[in-house]
Protein backbone atom coordinates (compact mmCIF):
# COMPACT_ATOMS: atom_id res chain seq x y z
CA UNK A 1 0.00 0.00 0.00
CA UNK A 2 1.13 3.52 -0.80
CA UNK A 3 0.84 4.84 2.75
CA UNK A 4 2.97 5.89 5.71
CA UNK A 5 1.23 4.15 8.62
CA UNK A 6 -2.41 3.00 8.82
CA UNK A 7 -3.18 5.40 11.68
CA UNK A 8 -2.59 8.54 9.58
CA UNK A 9 -4.13 7.46 6.28
CA UNK A 10 -7.17 9.75 6.54
CA UNK A 11 -5.25 12.79 7.81
CA UNK A 12 -2.56 12.32 5.14
CA UNK A 13 -5.19 12.14 2.41
CA UNK A 14 -6.90 15.29 3.73
CA UNK A 15 -3.58 17.18 3.66
CA UNK A 16 -3.13 16.16 0.05
CA UNK A 17 -6.73 17.05 -0.74
CA UNK A 18 -6.19 20.51 0.78
CA UNK A 19 -3.05 21.05 -1.30
CA UNK A 20 -4.86 20.02 -4.49
CA UNK A 21 -8.00 22.04 -3.83
CA UNK A 22 -7.29 25.53 -2.54
CA UNK A 23 -10.85 26.42 -3.56
CA UNK A 24 -12.10 24.42 -0.56
CA UNK A 25 -11.50 24.91 3.15
CA UNK A 26 -10.03 21.73 4.62
CA UNK A 27 -9.83 21.41 8.40
CA UNK A 28 -7.47 18.45 8.68
CA UNK A 29 -7.51 18.26 12.47
CA UNK A 30 -11.29 18.29 12.83
CA UNK A 31 -11.89 16.46 9.56
CA UNK A 32 -14.32 18.79 7.89
CA UNK A 33 -14.22 19.92 4.23
CA UNK A 34 -16.21 23.08 3.49
CA UNK A 35 -17.05 25.23 0.47
CA UNK A 36 -14.83 28.28 0.71
CA UNK A 37 -17.74 30.74 0.19
CA UNK A 38 -19.92 29.13 2.91
CA UNK A 39 -22.24 30.14 4.42
CA UNK A 40 -23.93 31.34 1.25
CA UNK A 41 -26.58 33.90 2.20
CA UNK A 42 -30.13 32.58 2.03
CA UNK A 43 -29.05 29.17 0.66
CA UNK A 44 -29.92 25.81 2.20
CA UNK A 45 -26.72 23.89 3.00
CA UNK A 46 -26.09 20.21 2.28
CA UNK A 47 -23.83 18.26 4.62
CA UNK A 48 -22.85 14.66 4.09
CA UNK A 49 -20.22 12.32 5.38
CA UNK A 50 -19.34 8.73 5.93
CA UNK A 51 -16.44 6.39 6.30
CA UNK A 52 -13.33 7.06 4.22
CA UNK A 53 -12.38 4.60 1.50
CA UNK A 54 -15.19 5.59 -0.90
CA UNK A 55 -13.39 8.51 -2.57
CA UNK A 56 -14.25 10.76 -4.28
CA UNK A 57 -17.43 10.41 -2.14
CA UNK A 58 -18.07 12.70 -0.14
CA UNK A 59 -15.36 15.38 0.03
CA UNK A 60 -14.89 15.22 -3.75
CA UNK A 61 -18.48 16.42 -4.14
CA UNK A 62 -18.09 19.61 -2.10
CA UNK A 63 -18.52 22.80 -4.10
CA UNK A 64 -21.06 25.02 -5.86
CA UNK A 65 -24.03 22.98 -7.09
CA UNK A 66 -23.50 20.03 -4.77
CA UNK A 67 -22.41 19.62 -1.11
CA UNK A 68 -21.67 22.54 1.23
CA UNK A 69 -19.53 20.38 3.51
CA UNK A 70 -18.38 16.81 4.04
CA UNK A 71 -17.15 14.91 7.10
CA UNK A 72 -14.80 12.00 6.39
CA UNK A 73 -14.63 9.31 9.07
CA UNK A 74 -11.99 6.65 9.59
CA UNK A 75 -11.76 4.04 6.84
CA UNK A 76 -15.22 2.41 6.51
CA UNK A 77 -16.30 4.00 9.80
CA UNK A 78 -18.93 6.68 10.18
CA UNK A 79 -17.67 10.10 11.27
CA UNK A 80 -18.52 11.31 14.79
CA UNK A 81 -21.28 13.80 15.73
CA UNK A 82 -18.72 16.52 16.60
CA UNK A 83 -17.61 16.68 12.95
CA UNK A 84 -21.16 16.97 11.63
CA UNK A 85 -22.12 19.69 14.11
CA UNK A 86 -18.97 21.65 13.24
CA UNK A 87 -19.74 21.30 9.52
CA UNK A 88 -23.36 22.36 9.99
CA UNK A 89 -22.34 25.43 12.00
CA UNK A 90 -19.81 26.40 9.31
CA UNK A 91 -22.27 26.27 6.42
CA UNK A 92 -25.64 27.27 7.88
CA UNK A 93 -26.79 30.66 6.59
CA UNK A 94 -29.96 30.48 8.66
CA UNK A 95 -31.83 28.73 5.83
CA UNK A 96 -31.20 25.31 7.37
CA UNK A 97 -29.07 22.25 6.70
CA UNK A 98 -29.90 18.96 4.98
CA UNK A 99 -27.94 15.93 6.23
CA UNK A 100 -27.49 13.34 3.48
CA UNK A 101 -27.04 10.03 5.30
CA UNK A 102 -26.27 6.64 3.79
CA UNK A 103 -28.31 3.93 5.49
CA UNK A 104 -25.78 2.16 7.69
CA UNK A 105 -26.36 1.71 11.40
CA UNK A 106 -23.30 3.75 12.35
CA UNK A 107 -24.00 6.66 10.00
CA UNK A 108 -27.63 6.82 11.09
CA UNK A 109 -26.82 6.83 14.82
CA UNK A 110 -24.08 9.46 14.54
CA UNK A 111 -26.07 11.78 12.26
CA UNK A 112 -29.10 11.44 14.56
CA UNK A 113 -27.00 12.52 17.53
CA UNK A 114 -25.50 15.37 15.48
CA UNK A 115 -28.94 16.59 14.37
CA UNK A 116 -30.04 16.85 18.00
CA UNK A 117 -26.89 18.74 18.98
CA UNK A 118 -27.12 21.09 15.97
CA UNK A 119 -30.75 21.86 16.75
CA UNK A 120 -29.69 22.69 20.32
CA UNK A 121 -27.44 25.31 18.71
CA UNK A 122 -30.38 26.77 16.82
CA UNK A 123 -29.62 25.21 13.43
CA UNK A 124 -32.61 23.87 11.53
CA UNK A 125 -31.77 20.35 10.35
CA UNK A 126 -33.52 17.95 7.97
CA UNK A 127 -32.26 14.47 7.11
CA UNK A 128 -32.54 12.24 4.07
CA UNK A 129 -31.61 8.59 4.25
CA UNK A 130 -30.17 7.02 1.10
CA UNK A 131 -31.03 3.32 0.75
CA UNK A 132 -30.82 2.17 -2.86
CA UNK A 133 -29.03 -1.21 -2.80
CA UNK A 134 -31.48 -3.90 -3.91
CA UNK A 135 -29.10 -6.70 -2.90
CA UNK A 136 -30.24 -6.32 0.71
CA UNK A 137 -33.83 -7.20 1.41
CA UNK A 138 -35.60 -4.36 3.15
CA UNK A 139 -37.20 -6.13 6.08
CA UNK A 140 -37.51 -6.04 9.84
CA UNK A 141 -34.78 -8.67 9.94
CA UNK A 142 -32.00 -6.57 8.40
CA UNK A 143 -30.63 -3.07 8.91
CA UNK A 144 -32.47 -2.21 5.68
CA UNK A 145 -31.12 -1.51 2.22
CA UNK A 146 -27.65 0.05 2.04
CA UNK A 147 -26.90 3.48 0.65
CA UNK A 148 -24.57 3.26 -2.38
CA UNK A 149 -24.49 4.86 -5.86
CA UNK A 150 -27.73 6.83 -5.45
CA UNK A 151 -25.89 9.03 -2.96
CA UNK A 152 -24.27 10.78 -5.93
CA UNK A 153 -27.66 11.42 -7.58
CA UNK A 154 -29.15 12.71 -4.31
CA UNK A 155 -26.22 15.03 -3.58
CA UNK A 156 -26.05 16.40 -7.14
CA UNK A 157 -29.77 16.96 -7.67
CA UNK A 158 -30.66 18.23 -4.18
CA UNK A 159 -27.50 20.36 -4.30
CA UNK A 160 -28.70 21.95 -7.55
CA UNK A 161 -32.11 22.68 -6.00
CA UNK A 162 -30.44 24.35 -3.01
CA UNK A 163 -28.21 26.38 -5.35
CA UNK A 164 -31.36 27.65 -7.11
CA UNK A 165 -32.63 28.94 -3.78
CA UNK A 166 -35.20 26.28 -2.91
CA UNK A 167 -36.18 26.27 0.79
CA UNK A 168 -35.23 23.42 3.14
CA UNK A 169 -38.54 21.49 2.90
CA UNK A 170 -38.30 21.56 -0.91
CA UNK A 171 -34.64 20.48 -1.00
CA UNK A 172 -35.45 17.67 1.43
CA UNK A 173 -38.47 16.57 -0.64
CA UNK A 174 -36.39 16.47 -3.84
CA UNK A 175 -33.65 14.49 -2.11
CA UNK A 176 -36.23 11.95 -0.91
CA UNK A 177 -37.76 11.77 -4.38
CA UNK A 178 -34.38 11.01 -5.97
CA UNK A 179 -33.65 8.30 -3.42
CA UNK A 180 -37.09 6.72 -3.85
CA UNK A 181 -36.58 6.69 -7.64
CA UNK A 182 -33.09 5.08 -7.49
CA UNK A 183 -31.89 1.50 -7.20
CA UNK A 184 -28.40 -0.05 -7.30
CA UNK A 185 -26.72 -3.43 -7.57
CA UNK A 186 -23.00 -4.12 -7.15
CA UNK A 187 -20.56 -6.87 -8.07
CA UNK A 188 -17.08 -7.59 -6.69
CA UNK A 189 -14.35 -9.33 -8.65
CA UNK A 190 -11.87 -9.09 -5.79
CA UNK A 191 -11.93 -8.25 -2.09
CA UNK A 192 -10.71 -4.86 -0.87
CA UNK A 193 -7.83 -4.34 1.55
CA UNK A 194 -8.14 -1.89 4.43
CA UNK A 195 -4.98 -0.13 5.62
CA UNK A 196 -5.58 -1.34 9.20
CA UNK A 197 -5.74 -4.95 8.11
CA UNK A 198 -3.09 -4.70 5.42
CA UNK A 199 -4.76 -7.42 3.38
CA UNK A 200 -8.08 -8.51 1.90
CA UNK A 201 -11.05 -8.14 4.26
CA UNK A 202 -12.74 -11.19 2.85
CA UNK A 203 -11.71 -14.21 0.90
CA UNK A 204 -12.67 -14.10 -2.79
CA UNK A 205 -10.53 -16.46 -4.85
CA UNK A 206 -9.58 -15.57 -8.43
CA UNK A 207 -12.09 -17.01 -10.86
CA UNK A 208 -15.04 -16.22 -8.61
CA UNK A 209 -17.20 -13.15 -8.12
CA UNK A 210 -19.54 -11.86 -5.44
CA UNK A 211 -22.98 -10.73 -6.56
CA UNK A 212 -24.76 -8.04 -4.54
CA UNK A 213 -21.65 -6.79 -2.80
CA UNK A 214 -21.74 -3.62 -0.70
CA UNK A 215 -19.21 -0.79 -0.67
CA UNK A 216 -17.36 -1.86 2.48
CA UNK A 217 -16.13 -5.19 1.29
CA UNK A 218 -18.99 -6.71 3.20
CA UNK A 219 -19.51 -10.00 1.45
CA UNK A 220 -22.49 -10.02 -0.87
CA UNK A 221 -25.26 -12.56 -1.01
CA UNK A 222 -24.14 -15.02 -3.60
CA UNK A 223 -20.84 -16.25 -4.97
CA UNK A 224 -20.52 -17.55 -8.54
CA UNK A 225 -17.82 -18.66 -10.92
CA UNK A 226 -16.51 -15.73 -13.02
CA UNK A 227 -18.98 -14.36 -15.55
CA UNK A 228 -18.52 -12.14 -18.64
CA UNK A 229 -19.34 -8.41 -18.59
CA UNK A 230 -22.39 -9.26 -20.68
CA UNK A 231 -23.66 -11.80 -18.15
CA UNK A 232 -22.94 -9.53 -15.18
CA UNK A 233 -24.83 -6.66 -16.83
CA UNK A 234 -27.85 -8.92 -17.34
CA UNK A 235 -27.90 -9.89 -13.66
CA UNK A 236 -27.27 -6.37 -12.32
CA UNK A 237 -29.79 -4.57 -14.52
CA UNK A 238 -32.49 -7.16 -13.95
CA UNK A 239 -31.96 -7.00 -10.18
CA UNK A 240 -32.41 -3.22 -10.35
CA UNK A 241 -35.42 -3.29 -12.70
CA UNK A 242 -37.17 -5.96 -10.61
CA UNK A 243 -37.46 -3.31 -7.92
CA UNK A 244 -38.01 -0.18 -10.00
CA UNK A 245 -40.83 0.53 -12.43
CA UNK A 246 -38.88 1.71 -15.47
CA UNK A 247 -41.46 3.92 -17.15
CA UNK A 248 -39.71 6.79 -18.91
CA UNK A 249 -36.13 8.01 -19.10
CA UNK A 250 -33.49 7.20 -16.47
CA UNK A 251 -30.20 8.54 -15.18
CA UNK A 252 -27.54 5.83 -15.24
CA UNK A 253 -24.41 5.55 -13.13
CA UNK A 254 -21.94 2.83 -14.09
CA UNK A 255 -19.70 3.05 -11.08
CA UNK A 256 -16.29 1.51 -10.58
CA UNK A 257 -15.41 0.12 -7.14
CA UNK A 258 -11.84 1.42 -7.31
CA UNK A 259 -9.84 -1.49 -8.72
CA UNK A 260 -11.42 -1.94 -12.13
CA UNK A 261 -9.83 -0.08 -15.09
CA UNK A 262 -11.96 2.44 -16.99
CA UNK A 263 -11.32 0.35 -20.12
CA UNK A 264 -13.32 -2.48 -18.53
CA UNK A 265 -15.84 -0.12 -16.97
CA UNK A 266 -16.80 1.44 -20.32
CA UNK A 267 -17.13 -2.04 -21.83
CA UNK A 268 -19.40 -3.00 -18.96
CA UNK A 269 -21.30 0.26 -19.47
CA UNK A 270 -21.95 -0.74 -23.09
CA UNK A 271 -23.47 -4.02 -21.89
CA UNK A 272 -25.61 -2.17 -19.32
CA UNK A 273 -26.91 0.08 -22.10
CA UNK A 274 -27.66 -2.97 -24.21
CA UNK A 275 -29.73 -4.65 -21.46
CA UNK A 276 -31.62 -1.45 -20.63
CA UNK A 277 -32.40 -1.06 -24.33
CA UNK A 278 -33.64 -4.66 -24.54
CA UNK A 279 -35.88 -4.00 -21.52
CA UNK A 280 -37.29 -0.84 -23.16
CA UNK A 281 -35.74 1.63 -20.74
CA UNK A 282 -34.52 4.87 -22.37
CA UNK A 283 -31.30 6.24 -20.84
CA UNK A 284 -31.33 10.05 -20.66
CA UNK A 285 -27.89 10.61 -19.10
CA UNK A 286 -24.94 8.32 -18.34
CA UNK A 287 -22.05 8.76 -15.96
CA UNK A 288 -19.18 6.26 -16.03
CA UNK A 289 -16.32 6.29 -13.55
CA UNK A 290 -15.07 5.65 -10.03
CA UNK A 291 -17.38 7.72 -7.83
CA UNK A 292 -18.54 5.57 -4.92
CA UNK A 293 -15.62 3.25 -4.39
CA UNK A 294 -14.57 0.56 -1.99
CA UNK A 295 -10.80 1.13 -1.68
CA UNK A 296 -9.05 -1.17 -4.17
CA UNK A 297 -11.93 -3.55 -4.76
CA UNK A 298 -12.33 -4.70 -8.37
CA UNK A 299 -15.90 -4.59 -9.55
CA UNK A 300 -18.71 -2.26 -10.48
CA UNK A 301 -22.18 -1.19 -9.56
CA UNK A 302 -25.15 -0.06 -11.60
CA UNK A 303 -27.44 2.69 -10.31
CA UNK A 304 -30.60 3.66 -12.16
CA UNK A 305 -32.72 6.69 -11.27
CA UNK A 306 -36.17 7.23 -12.77
CA UNK A 307 -35.97 10.87 -13.87
CA UNK A 308 -38.72 13.33 -14.73
CA UNK A 309 -38.06 16.67 -16.44
CA UNK A 310 -37.38 18.51 -13.21
CA UNK A 311 -34.81 15.97 -12.03
CA UNK A 312 -33.12 16.02 -15.45
CA UNK A 313 -32.95 19.82 -15.39
CA UNK A 314 -31.40 19.77 -11.90
CA UNK A 315 -28.97 17.05 -12.98
CA UNK A 316 -27.85 19.21 -15.92
CA UNK A 317 -27.45 22.31 -13.74
CA UNK A 318 -23.87 23.59 -13.33
CA UNK A 319 -21.68 21.88 -10.74
CA UNK A 320 -18.13 22.68 -9.69
CA UNK A 321 -16.52 20.14 -7.35
CA UNK A 322 -13.23 18.20 -7.42
CA UNK A 323 -14.89 15.06 -8.81
CA UNK A 324 -17.90 16.32 -10.74
CA UNK A 325 -17.95 19.50 -12.78
CA UNK A 326 -19.89 20.71 -15.79
CA UNK A 327 -21.81 23.71 -17.08
CA UNK A 328 -21.08 27.38 -16.86
Amino acid sequence: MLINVPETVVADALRGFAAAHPELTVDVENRVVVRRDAPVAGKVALVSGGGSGHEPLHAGFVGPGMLSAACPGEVFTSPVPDQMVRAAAAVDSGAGVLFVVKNYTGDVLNFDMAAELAEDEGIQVAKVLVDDDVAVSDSLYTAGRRGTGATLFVEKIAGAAAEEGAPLERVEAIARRVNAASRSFGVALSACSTPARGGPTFDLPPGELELGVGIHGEPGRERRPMMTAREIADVAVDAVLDDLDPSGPVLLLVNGMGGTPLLELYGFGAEVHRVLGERGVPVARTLVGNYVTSLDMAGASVTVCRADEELLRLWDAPVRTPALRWGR
Partner: protein
Amino acid sequence: MSAVLDAGFFRRWMTAAAAAVDREADRLTDLDSAIGDADHGANMRRGFAAVAAALEAEPQPTPGAVLVFAGRRLISTVGGASGPLYGTLLRRTGKALGDAAEVTPEALAEALGAGVAAVAQLGGATAGDKTMLDALGPGVDALGRGGGFAGAARAAAEGAAATVPMLARKGRASYLGERSIGHQDPGATSAALLFEALVEAAA
Protein backbone atom coordinates in the same frame (compact mmCIF):
# COMPACT_ATOMS: atom_id res chain seq x y z
CA MET B 1 -15.14 -8.31 46.02
CA SER B 2 -14.95 -5.03 47.87
CA ALA B 3 -18.25 -3.87 49.36
CA VAL B 4 -18.14 -0.40 47.86
CA LEU B 5 -16.71 0.94 44.61
CA ASP B 6 -15.27 4.45 44.39
CA ALA B 7 -14.21 6.71 41.50
CA GLY B 8 -10.74 5.13 41.59
CA PHE B 9 -12.28 1.73 40.90
CA PHE B 10 -14.20 3.09 37.91
CA ARG B 11 -11.06 4.73 36.50
CA ARG B 12 -9.24 1.39 36.89
CA TRP B 13 -12.17 -0.29 35.11
CA MET B 14 -11.82 2.00 32.10
CA THR B 15 -8.02 1.58 32.02
CA ALA B 16 -8.42 -2.19 32.20
CA ALA B 17 -11.01 -2.04 29.43
CA ALA B 18 -8.56 -0.08 27.26
CA ALA B 19 -5.87 -2.70 27.91
CA ALA B 20 -8.25 -5.60 27.18
CA VAL B 21 -9.48 -4.03 23.94
CA ASP B 22 -5.88 -3.34 22.89
CA ARG B 23 -4.87 -6.95 23.65
CA GLU B 24 -7.84 -8.38 21.73
CA ALA B 25 -8.01 -5.83 18.89
CA ASP B 26 -6.73 -8.23 16.21
CA ARG B 27 -9.23 -10.89 17.26
CA LEU B 28 -12.10 -8.39 17.19
CA THR B 29 -11.07 -7.28 13.70
CA ASP B 30 -10.82 -10.90 12.51
CA LEU B 31 -14.31 -11.64 13.80
CA ASP B 32 -15.56 -8.44 12.15
CA SER B 33 -13.99 -9.29 8.80
CA ALA B 34 -16.00 -12.52 8.70
CA ILE B 35 -19.40 -10.85 9.04
CA GLY B 36 -18.77 -7.10 9.04
CA ASP B 37 -16.19 -4.70 7.66
CA ALA B 38 -13.02 -5.54 9.57
CA ASP B 39 -12.65 -2.44 11.71
CA HIS B 40 -14.13 -3.26 15.11
CA GLY B 41 -10.76 -3.85 16.79
CA ALA B 42 -9.22 -0.63 15.47
CA ASN B 43 -12.27 1.43 16.41
CA MET B 44 -12.56 0.08 19.95
CA ARG B 45 -8.81 0.46 20.48
CA ARG B 46 -8.90 4.10 19.34
CA GLY B 47 -11.93 4.89 21.52
CA PHE B 48 -10.84 3.29 24.77
CA ALA B 49 -7.28 4.59 24.40
CA ALA B 50 -8.80 8.08 24.17
CA VAL B 51 -10.92 7.37 27.25
CA ALA B 52 -7.92 6.19 29.29
CA ALA B 53 -5.83 9.20 28.22
CA ALA B 54 -8.65 11.66 28.96
CA LEU B 55 -9.26 10.17 32.40
CA GLU B 56 -5.54 10.44 33.12
CA ALA B 57 -5.66 14.15 32.30
CA GLU B 58 -9.03 14.84 33.92
CA PRO B 59 -9.76 12.26 36.62
CA GLN B 60 -13.45 12.55 37.42
CA PRO B 61 -14.61 12.81 41.06
CA THR B 62 -17.43 10.23 41.23
CA PRO B 63 -18.25 6.82 39.71
CA GLY B 64 -21.10 8.34 37.74
CA ALA B 65 -18.93 11.18 36.45
CA VAL B 66 -16.22 8.75 35.30
CA LEU B 67 -18.70 6.79 33.18
CA VAL B 68 -20.52 9.82 31.75
CA PHE B 69 -17.15 11.36 30.80
CA ALA B 70 -15.95 8.07 29.27
CA GLY B 71 -19.19 7.69 27.30
CA ARG B 72 -18.87 11.18 25.85
CA ARG B 73 -15.28 10.46 24.79
CA LEU B 74 -16.35 7.28 23.01
CA ILE B 75 -19.10 9.12 21.11
CA SER B 76 -16.56 11.78 20.06
CA THR B 77 -13.78 9.44 18.97
CA VAL B 78 -15.07 6.07 17.76
CA GLY B 79 -17.64 6.71 15.04
CA GLY B 80 -19.39 3.80 13.37
CA ALA B 81 -22.17 2.11 15.29
CA SER B 82 -20.04 1.13 18.25
CA GLY B 83 -19.23 4.75 19.19
CA PRO B 84 -22.84 5.80 19.88
CA LEU B 85 -23.77 2.37 21.28
CA TYR B 86 -20.87 1.95 23.74
CA GLY B 87 -20.96 5.69 24.48
CA THR B 88 -24.64 5.48 25.36
CA LEU B 89 -24.05 2.38 27.50
CA LEU B 90 -21.47 4.14 29.68
CA ARG B 91 -23.22 7.53 29.71
CA ARG B 92 -26.60 6.12 30.76
CA THR B 93 -25.02 3.80 33.33
CA GLY B 94 -23.13 6.77 34.75
CA LYS B 95 -26.25 8.92 34.85
CA ALA B 96 -28.12 6.15 36.67
CA LEU B 97 -25.35 6.05 39.30
CA GLY B 98 -26.01 9.72 40.09
CA ASP B 99 -23.42 11.68 42.06
CA ALA B 100 -22.71 9.18 44.86
CA ALA B 101 -19.05 9.04 45.90
CA GLU B 102 -19.24 5.28 46.35
CA VAL B 103 -21.62 2.68 44.97
CA THR B 104 -22.28 -1.00 45.70
CA PRO B 105 -21.94 -3.75 43.09
CA GLU B 106 -25.74 -4.15 43.33
CA ALA B 107 -26.20 -0.46 42.46
CA LEU B 108 -23.76 -0.90 39.55
CA ALA B 109 -25.76 -3.89 38.30
CA GLU B 110 -28.96 -1.84 38.40
CA ALA B 111 -27.35 1.14 36.66
CA LEU B 112 -25.86 -1.14 33.98
CA GLY B 113 -29.38 -2.46 33.45
CA ALA B 114 -30.49 1.07 32.59
CA GLY B 115 -27.48 1.47 30.29
CA VAL B 116 -28.23 -1.78 28.47
CA ALA B 117 -31.88 -0.78 28.04
CA ALA B 118 -30.73 2.49 26.46
CA VAL B 119 -28.48 0.59 24.05
CA ALA B 120 -31.36 -1.71 23.08
CA GLN B 121 -33.57 1.29 22.41
CA LEU B 122 -30.94 3.20 20.39
CA GLY B 123 -29.99 0.21 18.23
CA GLY B 124 -33.51 -1.20 18.02
CA ALA B 125 -32.18 -4.67 18.85
CA THR B 126 -33.34 -7.36 21.26
CA ALA B 127 -31.71 -10.42 22.80
CA GLY B 128 -31.00 -13.07 20.18
CA ASP B 129 -30.35 -10.62 17.31
CA LYS B 130 -26.62 -11.49 17.42
CA THR B 131 -25.42 -8.16 18.85
CA MET B 132 -23.54 -6.81 21.88
CA LEU B 133 -26.79 -7.20 23.83
CA ASP B 134 -26.29 -10.97 23.83
CA ALA B 135 -23.23 -10.55 26.07
CA LEU B 136 -24.37 -7.46 28.00
CA GLY B 137 -27.70 -8.98 29.04
CA PRO B 138 -26.33 -12.19 30.61
CA GLY B 139 -23.43 -10.27 32.21
CA VAL B 140 -25.68 -7.72 33.89
CA ASP B 141 -28.16 -10.41 34.94
CA ALA B 142 -25.41 -12.46 36.60
CA LEU B 143 -24.11 -9.39 38.41
CA GLY B 144 -27.62 -8.53 39.59
CA ARG B 145 -28.10 -12.05 40.93
CA GLY B 146 -24.99 -11.60 43.09
CA GLY B 147 -22.67 -13.64 40.90
CA GLY B 148 -19.86 -11.16 41.43
CA PHE B 149 -17.63 -9.72 38.72
CA ALA B 150 -16.14 -13.14 37.92
CA GLY B 151 -19.61 -14.64 37.51
CA ALA B 152 -20.67 -11.73 35.32
CA ALA B 153 -17.56 -12.08 33.15
CA ARG B 154 -18.22 -15.79 32.73
CA ALA B 155 -21.87 -15.20 31.80
CA ALA B 156 -20.96 -12.45 29.32
CA ALA B 157 -18.30 -14.63 27.65
CA GLU B 158 -20.80 -17.50 27.40
CA GLY B 159 -23.33 -15.07 25.96
CA ALA B 160 -20.80 -13.97 23.32
CA ALA B 161 -20.00 -17.60 22.46
CA ALA B 162 -23.72 -18.32 22.15
CA THR B 163 -23.99 -15.83 19.26
CA VAL B 164 -22.16 -18.27 16.94
CA PRO B 165 -25.28 -20.16 15.75
CA MET B 166 -27.46 -17.04 15.70
CA LEU B 167 -28.79 -15.31 12.56
CA ALA B 168 -27.84 -11.61 12.58
CA ARG B 169 -30.82 -9.25 12.44
CA LYS B 170 -29.12 -5.91 13.10
CA GLY B 171 -26.07 -4.02 11.86
CA ARG B 172 -23.85 -4.93 8.95
CA ALA B 173 -23.87 -8.65 9.66
CA SER B 174 -27.61 -8.68 8.88
CA TYR B 175 -26.81 -8.10 5.19
CA LEU B 176 -25.43 -11.63 5.11
CA GLY B 177 -28.66 -13.32 6.18
CA GLU B 178 -28.07 -17.06 6.63
CA ARG B 179 -24.36 -16.61 5.95
CA SER B 180 -24.00 -14.82 9.30
CA ILE B 181 -24.61 -18.14 11.06
CA GLY B 182 -21.48 -19.89 12.37
CA HIS B 183 -19.55 -16.74 13.32
CA GLN B 184 -19.20 -15.16 16.77
CA ASP B 185 -20.48 -11.60 16.91
CA PRO B 186 -17.62 -9.07 17.29
CA GLY B 187 -19.80 -6.63 19.28
CA ALA B 188 -20.80 -9.31 21.79
CA THR B 189 -17.14 -10.28 22.04
CA SER B 190 -16.00 -6.74 22.88
CA ALA B 191 -18.92 -6.36 25.32
CA ALA B 192 -17.69 -9.42 27.22
CA LEU B 193 -14.27 -7.73 27.53
CA LEU B 194 -15.91 -4.95 29.57
CA PHE B 195 -16.89 -7.52 32.22
CA GLU B 196 -13.42 -9.09 32.12
CA ALA B 197 -12.06 -5.61 32.83
CA LEU B 198 -14.33 -5.35 35.89
CA VAL B 199 -12.62 -8.43 37.33
CA GLU B 200 -9.19 -6.89 36.69
CA ALA B 201 -10.20 -3.56 38.23
CA ALA B 202 -11.32 -5.34 41.41
CA ALA B 203 -8.17 -7.48 41.70
